[in-house]
């Protein structure tokens, strides 16, 4: 089903969407009482920025130069944290020709090792039950050829398996158990569910409109290139507690809710023309979805109980990219790429009010972002 995009002001929209009295949401956001730490990739500056948002403001704690070729822009794209918070992993998109994933220690940001993977390694996630890292090889280099998901043993930084997936895989998020990975194949209009223990695709869900396609479990290779992508999915969330995965339809400007039990699209949220959702994140209870609208210079806050758009605040800079939610669900922290020589920007939104409460400039093309920790 589709929903009309709300024109209501952000705070009142949230109140109405959740059926709340105006009391709570109409107030200004309370200032933070904890510190929140995020790592952010500046894809066109080959830097990673460690940021802290908290009572003392929004600060840059460290700028970490990354990559191996100082005269090439190697493109740090995806970033994630080991389940115990001890390490961060960074995908470097460009190499000779293959990209890589690098491992660093959190806090000290000491470089520990790397592993060469496929073309344009991008989004990744770590299985909390095995410690294995799953990295999609995005391969946006023009030709629409099927690509892979790399599996990396993070202790040794060895690639131990590759999983054939589809054309331009992007987005990679594990379920809480760490035995299923969800990713999308952008140019195949597919959501895939990876069996993270057997290193194989368990299920495929075609999201497009081709009536002759979309059979779960179909052989991708038979259809690759035969249908023009419509949805162009760019992101899949971790499953919500109620067993739903949300997919960003960058091509048709929609957000898809996929019911994992039935393995079907249960709802479709129309983000509005020209918004082009790109990355998504859920609050821990699965009640609110935050989307970056790459072309729209906006964010979308969605109430998932009602399926209504709560608010769509405009960002301070163009090309919104990544989004994470703090572990207490108070804040959505968003990266904005900017264009050309503009710096990247990281913005913090109070989720309850959808108000922007802080922002900070970082290196060019701020993209990948990961929440590290919150502490008093």
């Amino acid at each position, binding site marked *: 089903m589709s929903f009309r995009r709300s024109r209501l002001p952000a705070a009142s929209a949230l109140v109405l969407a959740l059926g709340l009295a105006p009391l709570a949401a109409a107030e200004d956001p309370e200032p933070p009482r904890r510190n929140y730490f995020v790592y952010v990739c500046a894809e066109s500056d080959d830097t990673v920025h460690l940021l802290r948002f908290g009572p003392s403001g929004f600060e840059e704690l460290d700028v970490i130069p990354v990559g191996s070729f100082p005269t090439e822009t190697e493109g740090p794209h995806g970033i994630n944290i080991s389940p115990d918070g001890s390490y961060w992993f960074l995908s470097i998109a460009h190499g000779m020709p293959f990209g890589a994933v*690098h491992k660093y220690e959190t806090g000290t940001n000491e470089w520990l090792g790397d592993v060469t993977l496929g073309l344009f390694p991008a989004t990744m996630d770590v299985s909390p039950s095995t410690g294995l890292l799953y990295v999609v090889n995005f391969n*946006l280099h023009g030709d629409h050829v099927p690509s892979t998901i790399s599996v990396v043993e993070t202790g040794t930084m060895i690639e131990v398996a590759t999983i054939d997936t589809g054309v331009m895989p992007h987005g990679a998020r594990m379920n809480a158990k760490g035995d299923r990975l969800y990713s999308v194949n952008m140019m195949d209009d597919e959501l895939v569910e990876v069996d993270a223990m057997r290193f194989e695709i368990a299920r495929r869900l075609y999201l497009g409109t081709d009536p002759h396609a979309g059979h779960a479990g179909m052989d991708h290779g038979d259809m690759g290139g035969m249908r023009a992508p419509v949805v162009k999915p760019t992101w899949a969330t971790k499953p919500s507690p109620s067993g739903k995965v949300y997919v960003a339809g960058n091509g048709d400007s929609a957000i898809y809710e996929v019911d994992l039990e039935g393995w079907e699209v249960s709802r479709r949220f129309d983000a509005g023309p020209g918004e082009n959702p790109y990355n998504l994140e859920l609050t821990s*209870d699965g009640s609110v979805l935050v989307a970056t609208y790459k072309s729209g210079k906006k964010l979308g806050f969605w109430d998932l109980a009602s399926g209504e758009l709560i608010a769509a605040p405009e960002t301070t800079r163009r090309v919104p990219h990544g989004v994470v939610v703090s572990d207490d669900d108070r804040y959505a922290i968003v990266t904005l790429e900017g264009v050309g020589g503009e710096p990247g920007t990281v913005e913090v939104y109070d989720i309850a009010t959808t108000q922007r409460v802080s922002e900070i400039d970082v290196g060019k093309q701020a993209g990948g972002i990961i929440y590290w920790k919150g502490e008093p």
Partner: protein
Amino acid sequence: MLEHLNLRTRLLIATGLTLGLAPGLALAQEEEADPGPQPAEIIVTPSELELEVGDSLTLEAEVRDGDGNPMDRQVVFYSRRRRAVGVNPAGIVEAYRPGEHTLIAMVPKDPEDLHRRAEPAVTVEIPVTIPNPPVATVEVANLPGHLYTGTEIGLRPTVTDISGAVRHDVEVGWSSADPSVATVDSLGTLTLVRAGRTTLTVSAEAASSDTAIEVLANPVASITLGGAPDEPVRTGDVVFFEAKVTDASGNAVPDYPLQFATLGVPADGIVAPGAIAQVGDDGAFVAERSGTHTVIVDGFTHSASATVAVVSRNVRKDVEVVGRGPVRDRRTSDLWVWEGVDGRDYAVTGTHSADGHAYFWDVTDPSAISLIDTVRVDARTVNDVKVSEDGKFCVISREGASNRKNGLVILDVSDIRNGIEVIARYDDQLTGGVHNVFIAEDHIYALSAGRRYDILNAEDPTNPYRVGRFELDTPGHSIHDVWVADGIAYSSNWNDGIVAVDVGGGGMGGAPNNPVMLGSTPYPSGWNHAAYPYRSKSTGKFLMIGGDEAFPYQLMEGPRARRRAAGWIHIFEWDEWDSPREVARYQVPEAGTHNLWVEDDVLYIAYYNGGLRVVDISGEMRGDLYRQGREIASFRPYDPETVKPNSPFVWGPQPFKGHIYIADNTSGLWALKLVDAEPVNLGEPH
């Protein structure tokens, strides 16, 4: 007070409403249940493997709790060297390649334990040994046609195993059936004692082969060494010595083994010079220091020598700064200088890690360079800039476009003083970024995906379209640059070396829509970044000048290391496509190469932190040109007012109408000129 509760809980408390809680929240508020017995051990049978290549075996795995009770838990298998030994989810192992390998069996953490954790519950390593295949054959590889008493030959074996692989890791044994005729030591040195017949045996593992040899009486009566010049030569000049071995009748002795050596006395004032000259197996001699040198040819029973007087090369020039086009607020990338349609001279420079600018300069008067226009495109880096031979259009490459479509942009520069117009954008299948381009005979050669180059027809530059593509098929192939001359495209392919492709001038039926590979150079360093094809004016030989790009210190010291380049210039003689021969190098210590250009037997190199280097490449070349004093000039562009003050990092050079233009990454465009050097003694090699 509410901030530690989740979003919906906070809102519920705030409003007093009674909405249903999400399942996750309800679970989170319950007391943690006893997780029950946990995996403590995994028993894999067999616990270690020895397999032959091609063997298969199934692992059995049993998971036990702390009391030793079996548990029904999933076991994950994988290989740490999956291209050598594979294992599937069912535990079936397949052996592919020899070596010592490791398989892993692990039991994931309890799926209901949702706390943050990093390691699986239990992991066990299974060592796998796959021995090398047995040796199938071993043979002597280099036995000459004639063997003479009193001489020695260093024998080399060729060892092949049953898989067909040539092996270099197998111990080889040597023996002679009759040591009174010939002996052979453990290193394969064959000493020919007296005339007669014997059999050589070479063995490796269970394989061996016998070779019957006949040792002839040594007929040599004389060895002479010709080629010594009458006049002094300069450091860096190559002298070809020729040894003649004759018998008592004056006839040449075929296959006679010879060894060359050189020694010498450096000129007065040169103290502790290190090695001062070299001579190759072919008798090619070159000196690095002036002095009196002796070349010796050793024929075991006879020898000969010759003496060469060597003087300092003395080609040094000074560099004069003629003019500048400073770019101080953003980094500069490549440059191109050309004569415009209107007869004036222009230059274009790109920008790197900035905001998509290309700068256009009037350089008609190099002492008064003026910026006449800038073009800005949606990009962070305009890495490469090229102008068509007729001066009518310019191609700039894009990386970091906000829509990630990158590709290239074509500009009309035919009436540059009255404006530069964007006449086309092309990004079809070039979305990953175009790092380098070249324009030749109405075609654009554009790098794509770091893997290949696409060839675009640009007869109508407002409407380019793809007509061809060239890509290697080697494992992990990669490309960095392409340069086209006389209908042959030369691409720089890192460890695949420099690849020559017929695109119309190679005589192999190639064309832009049908590129045909002609050959490639070896490149053991793996750093081939740029290449410049050049036919020597002084020798007529076809040379390929290959340049490295390398940052090994970054790899050693980590990404935070200061940028410090390495690498050198490789000089190949390449008159036959299937037999390139690397004969010389130019290597500046503590610096690294980038782009290069050759004109009139002079090599211009952008040597990053080493600045501009100008090198004499006239005549034959052997050895290290830097140490031979062939460097004509060097120049480091210092500017205290730039994005990175006083940090020369020269990106590209181009000689043009008697001047040298360089693009410096931190300071922009410079116009330079070589002038006679001040008579200052810098010592050799300068």
